[in-house]
């Protein structure tokens, strides 16, 4: 159940399933009464069908038995763990050192320290990320125009050393 939308099954709220207008505006009181009884009962039965289906279908369960299934645990796609910078096979990343993320960060958790390439142009030197002051708000990821950073799925972030919470995300300096 990585995608929360999957839980609900196929979209049930399409146009064809919109509530039909069963009670004509000029219906008599008696007719209204009986129409309401019938529609009420059918809607209750529909609800009961849904819940019993979920009850007997173990695949719909979203609860994770966490410490036991740690090895095969699949995190949701949109889970917000710590900020990571993906590196490709050659060890390169997409960060240009534009500092948009640094400006977007409300806590000052990101410091982009740029350096000078031999050609004289500015490139990324150190991308410092401070998990201790990060609220995992996702604003830096939204600000990044290059997709250089993203929210990781790691969530076991506890540490006994304060220094472990400050990290340099890039493995090597930026390229031209």
């Amino acid at each position, binding site marked *: 159940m990585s995608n929360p939308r999957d*839980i609900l099954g196929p979209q049930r709220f399409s146009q064809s399933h919109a509530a039909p207008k069963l009670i004509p505006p000029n219906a008599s009181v008696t007719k209204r*009464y009986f129409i309401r*009884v019938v529609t009420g009962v059918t809607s*209750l039965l529909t*609800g*009961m069908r*849904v*819940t*019993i289906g*979920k*009850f007997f279908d173990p695949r*719909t*369960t*979203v*609860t994770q*038995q966490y410490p036991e299934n740690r090895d095969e645990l699949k995190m949701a796609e949109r889970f917000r763990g710590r900020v990571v910078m993906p590196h490709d096979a050659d060890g390169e990343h997409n960060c240009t050192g534009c500092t948009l993320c640094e400006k977007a960060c409300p806590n000052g958790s990101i410091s982009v320290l740029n350096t000078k390439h031999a050609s004289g142009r500015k490139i990324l030197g150190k991308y410092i990320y401070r998990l201790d002051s990060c609220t995992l708000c996702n604003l830096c990821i939204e600000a990044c125009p290059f997709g250089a950073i993203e929210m990781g799925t790691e969530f076991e972030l506890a540490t006994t050393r304060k220094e472990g919470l400050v990290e340099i995300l890039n493995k090597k300096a930026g390229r031209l």
Partner: protein
Amino acid sequence: MSEPAVPSALEPASATETVAAPTSAIADWIRDLCGDQEWLAWVVITLIGLGALAALASVSAMVLVWMERKVSAHMQLRLGPMRTGWHGALQPMADGLKLLFKEGLLPRTTDLFSYLLAPFIPMATALLALAVIPFSETWQLADPELGIIYVAALSGMSVFAILIGSWGSNNKYSLLGGMRAAAQALSYEISLLLVLMTAVLMSGETAMQAIVQSQEGYFWNWWLIRAPGVGFIAFIAFIISATAELNRAPFDFAESESELTGGFHTEYAGMAFAMFFLAEYVHLLVAACLGAVLFLGGYLPPVPALAFIPGPVWLLVKAFGLVFLFMWFRWTFPRLRIDQLLNLEWKFLMPVALLNLLAAGALRGWGWL
């Protein structure tokens, strides 16, 4: 689920010709032991019966609490308790221990007498109602001639617990819950009684044992099926009004977690709360057993060939099926508003139950039953 050991202490008249069940043997043995002192045998047998009843009530309440948690969890795509024992089977024990160790708080402004009295009423009425439920031909603590009227009276009693408790709490939310519960109980009691009277009309009996015996044979002799249409409508009306009587969602106006912060038991803590909580589930069992006795043939097997499975098992299977139905309702249906609740009773359920009673009378009068 341990089997209920309810000896037939008072020896119902209809049970005299049946084969002696093990519990009857116990009763006979105690009678032999006491010899001439019949009063002593009576006292001992009654005490054993009451103890068995209390044990049944507490064990079944625990099972039901666990079942409720698991059913609700799986209907809401959760797993529920998984850590305490196999699939959380020991969770009710843990709950009970926690409640046992909690401090019994006594708010300063309560009306002490009614505040302390209220938690005992629901448990008492539940146990009293359980006493007349026939688990087999002989496993029944008492079989009064007017068993159904007795149960109806007790179900009416249970609202007093809510009213007295909410008044004694001296809390406006509690009192609101109590007042709503009173309005609800007054309304739904009518259709519940009409349904019970329908069952009485169909079977022509008022004693519980005799009602069960009137459904002897195959499952199409059960009143749910045997009375064409009438039995089914009566069953549906029974389920609705029983849900209301039990104060369960979608009719949980006494509690109203969302708007009254718990309603009548807001001010209760520790064991006092546990009494309310457990009694709620014993009441659930009683209502389910009552539904099984009236409409599903009680302890009788669906086909006589299955009679080798003892009666209590059949009754509990049927009762737990109904309990599942109640839980299914609770975790599916949206809650009603108070005016919707009263409209449902007075504009729909009561007329239906009344017409159904008339139909049952007509069927009876024409000799079709």
